[in-house]
């Protein structure tokens, strides 16, 4: 067991501002063995240049992915909006629970 001390002393040094979020997403790509997959993921932070998401499978760094992110529409009953992105995996972080943290840099995106 450990105790941790929360701190807000980390400064933002990224080129693009980012937000903490909890958006549902569908990831389409290939796993480390080259097999195609489509799987649900959870985007936990996002900037205009990329996302960090939690996924239940491992993907190799450098792999290409398509991520369809469901944007929240709040109280506006106009149907769900989606952000369709293509990008490359730039970082993979395994968690002890088996979940993988995947950072993706966008190559391009569009709204639908």
């Amino acid at each position, binding site marked *: *067991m*450990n*105790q*941790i*001390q*929360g*701190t*807000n002393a*980390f400064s*933002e040094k990224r080129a*693009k*501002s*980012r*937000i*903490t*979020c*909890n*958006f*549902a997403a569908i990831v389409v790509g290939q796993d480390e063995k080259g097999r195609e997959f489509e799987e649900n993921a*959870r985007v*936990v*932070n*996002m*900037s*205009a240049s990329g996302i*960090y998401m*939690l996924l239940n499978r491992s993907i190799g760094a450098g792999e290409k992915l398509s991520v369809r992110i*469901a*944007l*929240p*529409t*709040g*109280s*506006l009953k*106009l149907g*769900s*909006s*989606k*952000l369709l992105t293509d990008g490359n995996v730039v970082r993979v*972080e395994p*968690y*002890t*629970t088996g*979940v993988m*943290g995947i950072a993706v840099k966008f190559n391009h*995106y569009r*709204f*639908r």
Partner: protein
Amino acid sequence: MVKESKDAIRIILLDNLTMVRAGLRLLIESQADMKLVGEAGDLHEALHIIADLKPDIILLELSQNGNLELEAIPQLIHANGKSRIILVTSSTDPCLYHQAMQCGVLGVVLKTQKPEVLLKAIRKVYEGEAWVERSMVASLLTNITRNQPAIPTHLETECIAHLNQREKEIVCLIGNGLNTKQIASQLFISESTVRHYLTSIYEKVNVSGRLELLIFAYRVGLVNLAHLTP
């Protein structure tokens, strides 16, 4: 019979399962430095006893049946700002841990742990420390360092000040994920007018595209993520 000390840690249990509460009650009552002052199985009851009893520690098990969900944590804290919440959970989802701590939980203890671990966590959190599983520290710190809460910078605040009311409305709608056609329909204006507004907004807030504007809208609070669900 265990003798209680005068300065016993005052604890309440929040769990919609009666038998689980009974087990935790026995554990707490066996400790000389702890006192169980109340328990509740749903949010309404929980808010009432927290405000009334002002416990030092709240042991919380999340459940949908009793409305004791993640979203309830800020309400629990609001009921008595001095109470410290420890989440007792069977979940090993790092996302849940992170969200719970973002909401104000100060300790997370897995149900699979020995009872002594929970007792130690209660004492540490009572003393002003935080408590999480060793295995979760790395992922939590990663989340903390990479997911800083959005605080508008001075520059961003200035940018907002330059937007007129209509432009703010459009930024808000972009933040809600609407496309040009939907915004036009929502505001009863043409798509071309929306595009004109967007050009002006991009220049005023110094962004280069719609996604960057969406991020801006969240960062500066023109759209509140807490009230949105995907």
